[in-house]
């Protein structure tokens, strides 16, 4: 356990960082000429809409996000074992290896299924 005061330090750090960032934004917004017109407000790229009409995004992003959630949960489960490995002994090691192997089977399945391939 860490003393609660250290968490207060993190809060102070957050506050200071927020203050400096906001100050920089305010300075940038106040100083400088302001003459907006139609051409300047267009998104990008010589008057053309850069993205245009898009039907939908590839599903890869969704797959990657889902895999990330799954394996992030795996890490969240592995973390407590990593901290207390010695106390749990060989039995605990077997348990965590079994758990990891189960997820490894899932990983191999999706690897061979080719969901990682970006085409």
């Amino acid at each position, binding site marked *: 356990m860490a003393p609660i005061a250290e968490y207060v330090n993190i809060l102070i750090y957050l506050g200071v960082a927020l203050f400096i960032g906001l100050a920089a934004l305010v300075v940038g917004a106040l100083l400088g000429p302001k003459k907006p017109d139609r051409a300047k407000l267009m998104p990008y790229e010589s008057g053309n809409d850069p993205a245009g009409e898009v039907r939908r995004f590839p599903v890869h992003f969704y797959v990657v996000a889902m895999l990330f959630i799954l394996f992030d949960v795996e890490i969240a489960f592995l973390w407590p074992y990593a901290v207390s490995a010695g106390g749990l002994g060989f039995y605990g090691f077997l348990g965590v290896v079994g758990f990891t192997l*189960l997820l490894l*089977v899932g990983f*191999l*399945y999706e690897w*061979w299924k080719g969901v990682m391939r970006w085409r």
Partner: protein
Amino acid sequence: MTLLVLAAFSVGLTLLGFLVSPSALRGLTLLGLVLALLSLLLTWGEGFAFGPYRVDGVSQVFTLLALLGALWTVGLVRSRRFEFYLLVLYAATGMHLLASTQNLILMLVALETLSLPLYALATWRRGLGLEAALKYFLLGALAAAFFLYGAALHFGTTGSLEVGVAGEGPLYALALGLLLVGLGFKVALAPFHFWTPDVYQGSPTPVVLFMATGVKAAAFAALLRVVAPGAPEALGLLIALSVLIGNLAALLQKEAKRLLAYSSIAHAGYMALALYTGSLEALGFYLLTYVLATGLAFAVLSEVSPDRVPLESLRGLFHRDPLLGLALFVAALSLLGLPPLAGFWGKYLVFLEAAQAGQWGLLVLALLTSAVSAYYYLGLGLAVFQRGQAEAAPRPWARSAALLAALLLLFLGLVPGLVLPALAAGS
């Protein structure tokens, strides 16, 4: 032992599926299921416990039924993608786990292990089954949430996750009620039955076979553990509604799968009546006959067409293929409960137990609605003898399975005494 076989095969075949052809994987899946069945039968009547995982008579009886359903489904289907067999295996693993635990958390995990593969299986053919699969998924997830909330309240009021721990007060009653709702969805008891007709109609027929047999058996095992210790009065209401709605709505159906869906709701009501009177023997035997008969009906339907089966399309099935026609006829009569068939003894046992328990109101209602059901079961069974153009291109394997199930129904109907002691020994 059974769990080890099932888990090892489902995990191992996940990787092996890339190396061997789908038809070889189908053989391996069948092998795994048969091995699991063997390991179950070899240790019949022996208990086993490892933490919250406990094998006892109840778990063995219901696992047997679930494995039968899984075997039948895999036998009927030849899929080009090997995941179909894996999903059935994973679901069967979940069913065995659900039947062999009294721990609410493990029960929830098992419930999801069996449900998630079924959500995927329900949409196996794209397009048609999509709406049904979505409904099944959303309502199933809702039911699981009910179950989880009930488990949380149960833990909160009794301080224990084991079912059957005595508790008191309104919160404990609420917890039991929520658990009942969650499991009621799974077995399709009446106020929670709305998904059943749509899902049964929209899903591929062999998958419906699995849903109607395996899921029902596993969910009834869980229901038995959760509810039977102190059966709440509310269950009586659910039974009355189930037999009424199931049988009356089935009268109006023009589509065979929808008809069987409502019939399965009614049968869930009869099985819940057996559970209400606390007779494991009657429940087990009824489920056995129900699994055989309803599996037979769906197996024949899946030979007729993998999609919707209007009742008219069954006409002439007997003239086209006498074996399939007769099998459907036998299945319908057994579901109705006519004497020389096994279904009769199932119903007889349930009604006998209800009479001995003094549940006269429910008994009269069940008898009356059972009489009403004769109309649509006879309509389904006799349709095969009428003139018409049935379409069926049965495969040899399906024909022998149909023959076997029909003979089993007849055999169990003639000598029910052979199985009852085994069920009693298991309990």
